[in-house]
């Protein structure tokens, strides 16, 4: 992202709000300005994406686009931390907007009361600098991946099941994409899955940190690597990933010279 000067200048209140993260080596005020300039699309704001959005709002992302269809249900509340009990039956995205604005009024928030599909993916991703992919269905994740690769937008894919979490960052043309990993949606995946918020929130927080690093330009993203953690018998490991030469999504995208 380019630093466009005036618009990304920090005022005194912002310098004070972000003071403790401005101390992070290699980040500093230049990194904070880059976050302020950035727009992030978060697909679904449930247990994983909701926490990612919360962390990104706290960190001072300039704009969040939140896409999630449907109304809040009682059994969402064990993990969807942007929701409140009094909001049951109302659109999730509006609860999220309210909570995030309470946390950080500097963040612009656009809500889309729909899930991502082939029809809206390119438009929404085209308006973002980075995508956080946290939908519970592979069709949605693969639609986002396809649009993100075509548009050259980084995509942080974060997922969980039971006490396990997985995370990778897709950098189009440089790393494997989701279609390299998952060339066909697994037929036995179910939208409803076992989840503690402590696990989904961990994945969401890790995804937010990936987004912050990519946008601010410091640290090493999880490029061509899958982070896998299991909190049942606590263990964090990374697995190298490979591009699929015949990948119909990113195969045609040029590769960097060796």
């Amino acid at each position, binding site marked *: 992202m380019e630093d466009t000067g005036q618009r990304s200048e920090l005022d005194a209140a912002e310098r004070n709000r972000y003071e403790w993260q401005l101390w992070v080596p290699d980040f500093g005020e230049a990194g904070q300005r880059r976050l302020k300039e950035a727009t992030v699309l978060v697909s*679904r704001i*449930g*247990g*994983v*994406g909701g926490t990612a959005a919360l962390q990104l709002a706290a960190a001072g992302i300039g704009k969040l686009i939140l896409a999630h269809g449907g109304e809040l249900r009682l059994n969402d509340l064990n993990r969807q931390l942007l929701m409140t009990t009094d909001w049951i039956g109302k659109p999730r995205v509006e609860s999220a907007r309210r909570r995030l604005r309470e946390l950080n009024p500097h963040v612009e928030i656009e809500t889309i009361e729909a899930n991502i599909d082939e029809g809206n993916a390119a438009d929404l991703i085209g308006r973002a600098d980075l995508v956080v992919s*946290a*939908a*519970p*269905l*592979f069709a949605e*994740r693969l639609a986002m991946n396809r649009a993100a690769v075509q548009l050259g937008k980084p995509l942080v894919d*974060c*997922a*969980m*099941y*039971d006490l*396990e979490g*997985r995370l990778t960052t897709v950098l189009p043309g440089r790393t494997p994409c989701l279609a390299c*990993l*998952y*060339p*066909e*949606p*697994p*037929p*036995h*995946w179910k939208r409803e*899955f076992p*989840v503690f918020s402590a696990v*989904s929130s961990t994945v969401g927080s890790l995804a937010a940190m990936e987004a912050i690093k990519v946008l601010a330009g410091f640290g090493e993203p999880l490029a061509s690597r*899958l982070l*896998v953690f*299991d909190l*049942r*018998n606590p263990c964090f*490991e990374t*697995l*190298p*990933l*490979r591009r*699929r030469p015949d990948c119909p999504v990113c195969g045609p995208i040029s590769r960097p010279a060796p």
Partner: protein
Amino acid sequence: MKLRVKYSGQLRTATRCGEEDVGWSPDRTLAELIAHLAERHAAGRPHLLSDSGAIRPSLLIAINDAAVMANEANATRLRDGDVVWLLPPIAGG
């Protein structure tokens, strides 16, 4: 010879174990190992093999932390002490 096999995601639930040791012979391939595991853990079979018996292309496979594509399994031999990690896709969000 002996292999260590690790299961993640729904495969861990289906096999009811995070990992296990499996006795093996050096002339048998990774594809044969996966077919053997599908037989040993019937509940895990759908996550490993399609109805036709082919390894699911979206199954992530690693041997000693190096990625192996499903279509390479027929040509992949295993060595004593190898750690084979099988990760069917997950998408909880």
